[in-house]
């Protein structure tokens, strides 16, 4: 195999590799026309360089390891766990910029403005110790830069990721007696120390408090200020009619209904709904009244062969007195009848049976098998949002900042995080299998049908339909099952909201992405996208840089004119798809993927959850290497074509022009590839 070199200079490092690098913000969107990736791709000309890019990678890795762990009795006890190895300027602007920029200024996005700057602030790094520098707060991020280290130490945290700000007492940092802890949603808590009673410091933390929680301070979310332009418009990715058409809808049993076009029927549902053709309007009204939050059963996905469907809804309002709704029963019967292959309908209730019973006492409940004939009800026993929030909180506790080496695995176990991932995957496998093998339609609901329901339907669809395993298809899946069907992103994430104790917050979407990552691990060739794609989605779930995950429902988004006033995350991603493409992808078209939902085969996603820990060994990603190979492939192919052309013209010319003076050899063959 030929050797590779990752292009020119220090820039030859990919964002992918940077993913595990603490303190470096995941590569933000580049300014347009900044020469997309041109500097990092290996060029054919560089191939003969004696050391491959991976050797360079190894060098960095090794330096990191040496500084972080090699210790023992030989060297002194003072071990500096340094990230400087992987530390590099996150933006080309910084590298090439003028001296002033080198010194302090934070790189900014179009539309981003600096709110306050304070010098001599101390960042208390849990891994490398305290470091002094300049802290800048903009309306999008906080940016800390210290020139004490070589290369400069940079911490770049977007404000959207901040869950709460806390004043802490700090001792032993000299005159820097005030401290602030920034508790983040993405598994880290950076801490700063500063001198008391200094105007610039007070100002900066005032600004931080204000801009970290714009919603609570009557300020716009940064997405509305962000002025980046991308060549691709991500808001066009999801067109419900086109997506339903792709699924073969409408057909004789199912129609695309505009009954909710003004969001009057159900304010948390999208304008377009796919419902049985035969349902009469007045019956529909009765069903609406019988379902929690008016979330009636609507079609999510239809099997191209068997016509078995996944429909989703909220719990029926059965209540303590076992209320019935004939129209609802009939409605489900219609759903069943739409699929000629089976005379059964399976209802998957995501909740724990006991919880569903409790809900009954509070007007909610579940379908009784004796009223819904031919329906079988299965509880998937998945705990609620509060349990999940608690689980992730525990996970953060054991991973940041310090990992207890001796108890690492049992500590992970005690968070039950993987156990819940398993429950979700297993539930989705059961749903997918019911459709695929059982040819039976399913109805999925939990209580309101916007959390666990979205997790389950989207995972099952990902298993069943290879389209959703492409970059575009996955974006459609998120837009459809999560965003348009009213997963309450604003509430669950708490965008711009200072009230961190809000019990409605919960990392359900993170959990879903984790499940996708687990599937990716088990089927490395089945997904068009890579790990960076998933991490990027999660980073911008919090960042508020893009409009994609803002608000709770389609209705709210329309009202806020989100599509005209903000940029879609997919604009950014789809403008550089090669960054997010899995080189292994071979497209398992028509393959249903059943991941093994056993704890033994699930793994903690350390590249995401533990990425701030410098002792986290960033993998020399094989797929990174392959991506380079693919670039080389296309360059080689170009070269072959070029040489072919040249050879044919030359052989022509040399046969015709023989004797004439062939000018100085037009294309000197100076490199051997």
């Amino acid at each position, binding site marked *: 195999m030929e050797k590779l070199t990752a292009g020119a200079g220090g820039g030859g490092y990919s964002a992918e590799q940077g993913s595990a690098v603490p303190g470096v913000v995941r590569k933000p969107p580049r300014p347009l026309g900044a020469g997309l990736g041109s500097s990092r791709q290996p060029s054919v000309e560089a191939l003969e360089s004696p050391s491959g890019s991976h*050797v360079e990678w190894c060098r960095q890795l*090794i330096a990191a390891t040496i500084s972080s762990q090699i210790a023992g009795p030989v060297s002194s006890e003072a071990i500096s766990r340094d990230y400087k190895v992987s530390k590099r300027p996150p933006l080309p602007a910084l590298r090439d910029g003028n001296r002033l920029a080198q010194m302090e200024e934070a790189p900014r996005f179009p539309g981003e403005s600096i709110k306050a700057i304070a010098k001599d602030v101390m960042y208390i790094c849990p891994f490398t110790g305290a470091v002094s520098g300049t802290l800048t707060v903009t309306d999008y991020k906080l940016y800390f830069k210290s020139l004490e280290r070589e290369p400069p130490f940079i911490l770049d945290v977007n404000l959207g990721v901040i869950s709460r700000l806390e004043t802490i007492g700090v001792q032993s940092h000299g005159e820097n007696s005030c401290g602030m802890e920034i508790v983040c949603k993405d598994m880290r808590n950076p801490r700063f120390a500063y001198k008391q009673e200094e105007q610039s410091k007070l100002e900066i933390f005032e600004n931080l408090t204000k801009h970290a929680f714009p919603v609570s301070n009557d300020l716009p979310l940064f997405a509305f200020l962000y002025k980046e332009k991308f060549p691709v418009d991500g808001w066009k990715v999801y067109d419900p009619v086109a997506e339903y058409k792709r699924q073969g809808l409408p057909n004789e049993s199912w129609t695309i209904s505009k009954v909710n076009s003004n969001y009057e029927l159900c304010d948390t549902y999208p304008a377009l709904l796919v419902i049985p053709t035969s349902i009469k309007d007045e019956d529909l009204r009765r069903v609406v009244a019988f379902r929690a939050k008016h979330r009636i059963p609507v079609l999510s996905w239809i099997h191209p062969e068997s016509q078995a469907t996944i429909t989703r809804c909220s719990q029926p309002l059965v209540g303590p007195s076992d209320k019935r709704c004939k129209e609802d029963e009939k409605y489900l019967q219609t759903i069943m009848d739409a699929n000629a292959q089976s005379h059964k309908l399976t209802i998957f209730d995501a909740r724990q049976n006991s919880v569903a019973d409790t809900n009954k006492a509070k007007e909610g409940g579940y379908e009784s098998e004796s009223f819904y004939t031919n329906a079988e009800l299965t509880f998937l026993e998945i705990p609620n949002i509060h349990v999940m929030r608690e689980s992730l909180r525990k996970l953060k506790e054991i991973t940041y900042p310090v990992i207890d080496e001796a108890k690492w695995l049992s500590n992970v*176990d005690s968070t039950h995080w993987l156990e819940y991932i398993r429950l979700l995957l297993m539930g989705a496998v059961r749903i997918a299998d019911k459709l695929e093998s059982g040819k039976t339609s399913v109805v999925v609901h939990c209580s309101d049908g916007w959390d666990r329901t979205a997790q389950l339907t989207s995972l099952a669809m990902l298993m069943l339909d290879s389209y959703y395993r492409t970059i575009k298809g996955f974006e459609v899946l998120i837009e459809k099952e999560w965003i348009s069907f009213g997963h309450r992103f604003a509430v669950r994430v708490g965008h711009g909201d200072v009230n961190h104790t809000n019990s409605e917050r919960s990392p359900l979407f993170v959990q879903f992405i984790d499940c996708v990552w687990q599937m990716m691990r088990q089927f490395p060739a089945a997904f068009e996208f890579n790990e960076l794609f998933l991490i990027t989605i999660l980073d911008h779930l919090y960042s508020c840089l893009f409009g994609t995950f803002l608000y709770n429902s389609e209705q709210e988004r329309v009202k806020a004119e989100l599509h005209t006033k903000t940029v879609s995350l997919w604009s950014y991603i789809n403008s550089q798809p090669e960054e997010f493409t899995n080189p292994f992808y071979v497209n398992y078209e028509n393959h249903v993927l059943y991941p093994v939902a056993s704890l033994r085969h699930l793994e903690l996603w350390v590249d995401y959850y533990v990425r701030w820990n410098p002792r986290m*060994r960033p993998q020399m990603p094989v797929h990174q290497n392959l991506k380079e190979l693919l670039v080389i492939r296309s360059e080689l192919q170009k070269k072959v074509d070029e040489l*072919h052309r040249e050879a044919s013209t030359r052989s022509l010319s040399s046969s015709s022009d023989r004797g004439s003076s062939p000018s100085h*050899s037009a294309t000197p063959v100076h490199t051997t590839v």
Partner: protein
Amino acid sequence: MEFAELIKTPRVDNVVLHRPFMPRVEGTLCLTGHHLILSSRQDSNEELWLLHSNIDSIEKRFVGSLGTVIVKCKDLRIIQLDIPGMEECLNIASSIEALSTLDSVTLMYPFFYRPMFEVIEDGWNTFLPEQSFKQIESSTDEWRLSYVNKDFSVCPSYPPVLAVPKSIDDETIRKVATFRHAGRFPVLSYYHKKNGMVMMRSGQPLTGSNGRRCKEDEKLINATLRAGKRGYIIDTRSINVAQQAKARGGGFEVEAHYPQWRRIHKTIERSNILQESLIKLVEACNDQSHNMDRWLSKLEASNWLTNIKEILTTACLAAQCIDREGASVLVHGTEGTDSTLQVTSLAQIILDPTSRTIRGFESLVEREWLQAGHPFQQRCSQSAYSNSKPKWEAPVFLLFLDCVWQILRQFPCSFQFNEHFLILLFEHAYASQFGTFLGNNSFERRKLKLPQKTVSLWSWVNRPQDTERFLNPLFEANSLVIWPSVSPQSLLLWEGVFLRWNRSSKCLDEAYDEMIHIIEHNKELQSKVNTLRRQLAELETEDVQLETP
């Protein structure tokens, strides 16, 4: 002895075989002296050939007259045979039991195996000590080969030829041997070309409780130090264990007598504890109970990854002393045949790029394990399923392979071989048609006449058509010293061995094939470019020739 005596029922029809990830097969079960064979007689692919020596234990169950024999293999696979007829089943079971626990080495399959391939390069002669020493000789003249052990009288577990400091004569060595456990005097294990530092290994010094000293021993190891330089002694036992060893005649080098050496104690577990760890690990991996509660806690409780961590950390320490401190190192534990070898061989993987090639790794296994006297016969006679109480069994070599896998995972492009190669060595260390891993040391191998009577694993692996399977397509020569990370979140369970029979690897294999495909395609393009360039250059010369009058 005739094998026929042990085979009570050589053949049973209508036996149903269940294997992980394969459809059940019905066919005829045959027992031969060395194999359990199941043939469906329809499709030649549907056959099972299992070496009796690969069988770790068996269980039998009866439902009516239908018997079931569950065969648990040393490679951790579990297969099930449904055998109609109680008598047949019992006979088969007891025959398997007898055949899989034969005492005599000379009855093992390697003595009967005739290769179906032509031996081009006899693996028994590929890695002779003289040859590996030539490499060292080319960079230093401070070492020499000693034949003091040529009749195995000085140290029965050492090979006949060993590298020792040039300034030390054989007489001194004989004296040193009496001062070291089982005669294992300090010998050269690795020479670090970069700075001329060396790694040696030995058995523990026999200081005993009254603090015996041996001037010759001190002289020998001091002879390896540069003037004014200090060296490090890495004792793979904790200080307490080392102290206790004194009472049994063993001990460690005290500072007073070895002032130029600094002693560091690390804790690598002893063999019986490692065996327990393996058993617990495999139990956890095979736990079929449905809720699989607390899997990670069970994994942790097996301590397998902790053992990996300890071994890797100690190897890193040894490598660090040599490469970064510029000091020579002596490694030993008690006998110097287990943890010592784990450390010296892994340190070489870290330090020496050659040992990350296929040949280099084979050479490493030859030198640091086979010739160094790791008792494979004892350590690998049982694996994780054995019902009998372990005597000397221990997964010392498997742990070494696992550590190599961890490093390979962290540096996926720096090794010429792939995971399959490591798995192959694991399998053959426990059961094989080749003689390579038979016997406990060179002396036993010579007595058994293995090189004459059996085929070497290397003879087969090194045939180009067979090597291919074990080549890492991503390999790029990397001359760096590679420091692995040993933090717990960087160490993973080796699924390729421990969950191999629990999950299908089809999708992972497909991704791997895709990777090979990309690389192959690039090679083709590359050669196309080269050809075209050549053609163009030719055309150009032609033009120039035409131009010159």
